[in-house]
């Protein structure tokens, strides 16, 4: 009997301890003056030169200001530069700098600091540094700098307003300390309670010069790579905003979260080896066109994306200025037509196509293999744990990818230009070379649009890519926070969030 009592007592203590724990306090609720974002990336380095577009840019926007501000609709506004002049060749920009701005270490912002930062970016080998390869930054006077490019760049303002001109303290630029501790003039100041690779805590900068961009007293980023974690954190009120996907959208909407949706990516096949160096079949235009005809994009959109998105043949977005609606009708699903084209190219019996494979591609990979098998193209999926590395390594003639749709020129520079990072085999032909030369000779907006329209039509007709559909971003916020999508970015810019007062 005594043993039973002892055991019962221990059990009771354990149980009561649990109850005490449970009753102790509720889940932490976010304040209306704070913003907590569930982020899918972490900061690799706080050096401004290492900033990247997409998900990561929000971190840098919190602590740094860039020279030019990009509005949600993509238009440009003054920031640390109050005005700017671009030369007619789009090879140089003269920037007038704002006076009276100080960094959080007390040092002033001026032309010397701007030049130091721009040069650090040009020489820093960061994610976006290639754009300014060979560029030089020079001080004109105390509050004016000139950036001169090696090649014409019609989208120079885009680059300066995204990642290429974040300004750090002149005392900190080039030091090792800046990698782990940001020193900027931005709306928020890094709090040392942050945990590298896990949580970034930022408090409002009390001396910030533009209060309109500082809408919260505290901003916290929590790295949550797992989508189920982000859903749970959002539903339980631990985070105010995060990006989800089609599969989780209904759960979040059902819990009362507000969906903001916009397009920044397209999903489809990169037919990279257009010269046939890895797989000779892909050198034939007919073979690439056959692949385009063999895939039922509408069915893929319905089954993989639950119908959310838009079937397209184009890598350029509808807002790019070079998009042509008629091109989206070019490759209706037709296995018969695909077989005929393969026969005309000398591949009536088909061929084998090696492509990298990751389990995240399911169920799409299975559908793709089935569609291609129906026209006698056998897909040999090669499993890899490093999918991006496999695609970019130049070992595969083709690969599935979800690629960013930037502005027309950014998109061209990324995927089509002869030295574009996603033109893995550096392929070019007379049409793209002519367009490239024309843009370099005349970088006016009218000529860029005219040339890229030609390029768009050409690469669709020659099936450089087989886009399936655009992928809508599914960004969710709770009732405490509102946000506005940012043109050509995966997530809203940090400036686009605001408290709702609820």
């Amino acid at each position, binding site marked *: 009997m*005594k*043993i039973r009592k*002892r*055991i019962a007592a*221990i*059990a009771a203590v*354990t149980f009561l301890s649990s109850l005490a*724990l*449970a009753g*102790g*306090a*509720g*889940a*932490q609720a976010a304040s209306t003056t704070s913003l907590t974002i569930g982020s899918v990336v*972490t*900061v*690799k*380095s706080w050096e401004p030169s290492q900033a*990247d577009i*997409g998900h990561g840019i929000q971190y840098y926007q919190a602590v740094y200001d860039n020279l030019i501000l990009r509005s949600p609709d993509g238009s440009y506004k003054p920031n640390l530069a109050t005005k700017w002049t671009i030369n007619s060749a789009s090879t140089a920009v003269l920037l007038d700098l704002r006076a009276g701005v100080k960094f959080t270490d007390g040092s002033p912002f001026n032309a010397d600091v701007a030049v130091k930062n721009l040069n650090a970016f040009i020489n820093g*080998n*960061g*994610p*976006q540094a*290639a*754009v300014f390869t060979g560029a030089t930054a020079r001080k004109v006077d105390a509050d004016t700098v000139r950036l001169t490019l090696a090649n014409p760049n019609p989208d120079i303002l885009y680059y300066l307003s995204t990642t290429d001109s974040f300004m750090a303290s002149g005392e900190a630029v080039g030091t*090792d300390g800046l*990698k*782990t501790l940001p020193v900027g003039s931005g709306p928020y100041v890094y709090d040392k*309670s942050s*945990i*590298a*690779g*896990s949580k970034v805590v930022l408090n409002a900068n009390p001396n910030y010069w533009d209060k309109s961009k500082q809408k919260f007293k505290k901003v916290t980023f*929590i*790295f*949550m*790579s*797992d989508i*189920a*974690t982000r859903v*749970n*954190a959002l*539903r*339980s*009120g*631990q985070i105010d905003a995060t990006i989800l996907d089609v599969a989780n959208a209904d759960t979040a909407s059902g*819990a009362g979260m507000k969906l903001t949706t916009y397009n920044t990516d397209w999903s489809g096949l990169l037919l990279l080896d257009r010269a046939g160096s890895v797989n000779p079949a892909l050198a034939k235009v007919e073979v690439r066109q056959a692949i385009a005809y063999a895939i039922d994009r509408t069915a893929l959109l319905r089954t993989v994306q639950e119908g959310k998105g838009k079937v397209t043949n184009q890598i350029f977005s509808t807002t790019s200025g070079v998009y042509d609606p008629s091109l989206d009708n070019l490759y209706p699903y037709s296995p018969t037509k695909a077989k005929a084209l393969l026969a005309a190219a000398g591949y009536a019996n088909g061929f084998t196509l090696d492509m990298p494979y990751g389990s995240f591609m399911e169920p799409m990979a299975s559908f793709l293999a089935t569609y291609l098998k129906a026209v006698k193209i056998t897909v040999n999926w090669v499993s890899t*744990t*490093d999918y*991006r*590395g496999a695609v*970019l*390594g130049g070992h595969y003639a083709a690969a599935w990818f979800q*690629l*960013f749709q930037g502005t027309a020129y950014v998109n061209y520079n*990324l995927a089509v230009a002869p*030295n574009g*990072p*996603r033109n893995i085999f550096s392929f070019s032909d007379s049409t793209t070379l002519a367009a490239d030369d024309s843009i370099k000779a005349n970088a006016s907006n009218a000529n860029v649009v005219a040339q890229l329209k030609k390029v768009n039509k050409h690469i669709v007709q020659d099936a450089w890519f087989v886009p399936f559909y655009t992928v809508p971003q599914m960004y969710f916020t709770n009732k405490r926070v509102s946000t506005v999508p940012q043109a050509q970015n995966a997530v809203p810019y940090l400036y686009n969030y605001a408290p709702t007062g609820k």
Partner: protein
Amino acid sequence: MLGFISRRLLSGVLLLLVTSSVAYFLMFASSNSIAINLLGDAATKDQIVAKEHELGLDRPILARYFDWLGHAVTGNLGKSWLSSESISESLLSRLGVTLTLVGVVIILAAIIATILGMLAAVKGGWIDRLVQVIGITGFAVPNFVVAIFLVTVFAIQTPIFPATGWVPFSEDPKQWLMSLALPVSALVLGTVASSAQQIRSAIKSVLERDWVRTLKSRGIPQREILFKHVLRAAAPAGLTVLSLQFVGLLGGVVIIEQLFALPGMGYLAVSSTTSGDTPVVMGVVVYTVILVIVVNLLVDLLNGWLNPKNRVK
């Protein structure tokens, strides 16, 4: 005893050397494109080549390995390629989270499994069967499923505990406890399941020994026999199971850390492995092996203290 400890420490150093070498060459074989991961989507081939040179990836693998080893033996594990953070500092801050999680789970599991094991061995009948059902259930249901269930019920439907996140003890002890509640609960079930049956068997086996019958025949109270003699004699088996659970949890905690967004070592291990951050992976390997060696040594010493027959000459 001193000789025993020295021999164990020496074999531990050899184990550390072998394990770290294997891990280093496995990382090389997996050849993740760290430069591409660092530089992002817009990186050109020239940039990638330059970044690989900067990281020393264009040097022979053996030269890189001996460089790493030379620094590691002096305690310098280097800096993360991804975050530039000192690996030792990063691991130490994360080790606290993982050890707290695993430590609390082991303590709770030891208490619950001992109670259940003892009840099952002493009482038999339905309690014994219940322990067996708990054992099978605990094995059958993965801890991440338990975690999802707990989050849904206790963080979303009834918002008692936070669904994710970690609050340091120094910041707010109450919130620290709250942030531990669900991840610990998710891990405890499986740990109790695999420990309770072992403890039950150990106690049952001791209860059947002649000396226990002798103690009973002398009229010594059952409580005293159970807590003073039987439990002590059965402890080594329980301790061994719990030490194995501890080591297993260091790996098993990875998914739970990811699901609850806890800044622990397991989470760091996965993210650095998938991104190809070799210096961090090597740091995780070194720290984990050291932990395993220390835990095994402590269990051996504890077993010897509990039962003189187990003391190693």
